[in-house]
């Protein structure tokens, strides 16, 4: 099972990424746990300032933007 985390402080862009990630995971039937991390101190353990960010299995794969569906699928399945 993939461990997917969305790092964001709760702003509109962060929520947009969270919704997009959930949609792709559901549509592609990806076996994954999803967690939204909003606590600044927890977010900064990943050394990321540009939010939102996507972390898959402990690796930061995206930061500072919301990608399109195809890119998101690639980021979640690679």
């Amino acid at each position, binding site marked *: 099972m993939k461990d997917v985390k969305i790092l964001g402080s*709760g702003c509109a862009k962060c929520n947009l990424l969270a919704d997009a990630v959930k949609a792709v995971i559901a549509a592609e039937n990806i076996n994954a746990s999803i967690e939204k991390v909003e*606590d600044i101190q927890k977010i900064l353990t990943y050394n990321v300032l540009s939010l939102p960010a996507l972390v898959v299995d402990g690796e930061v794969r995206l930061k500072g933007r919301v990608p399109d569906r195809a890119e998101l699928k690639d980021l979640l399945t690679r």
Partner: protein
Amino acid sequence: MNNAVEICPTTAFGLTEKGVLLVDVREPEEFAEASFDVRNLMLVPFSQFEERYHEIPADRQVIIACHVGERSLMATYFLMNHGYGQVVNMQHGIVRWAEKGFPVKGELKRKSGGCCCGSNSGKHAGNHSSGCC
């Protein structure tokens, strides 16, 4: 990780008068509108902070500030994670600084905004070391 030390604008102003460095992490367009008028000022925009944080001296006390204190809190934690031991966050940003009548160049028009990804919805998690404001 320890909580960040946070100070109010009044304390920050006193420190800048003693020569402590103030690092403004607002974006250039925000700075162009209004800026802190202090002796030792450095600009490291939040959008470039991950690439440029090493320009900030690690061997002296540093105050991090932004528009309302959200981005600067994140930047403070980021620096702490990178070994900066004398970094503090200025709460409430240049908005409260200007309200208090501390020196500003230009005119502060925007009273809100700015955060993690450009908005202001970050969550506070620091130590409030001063209640003077």
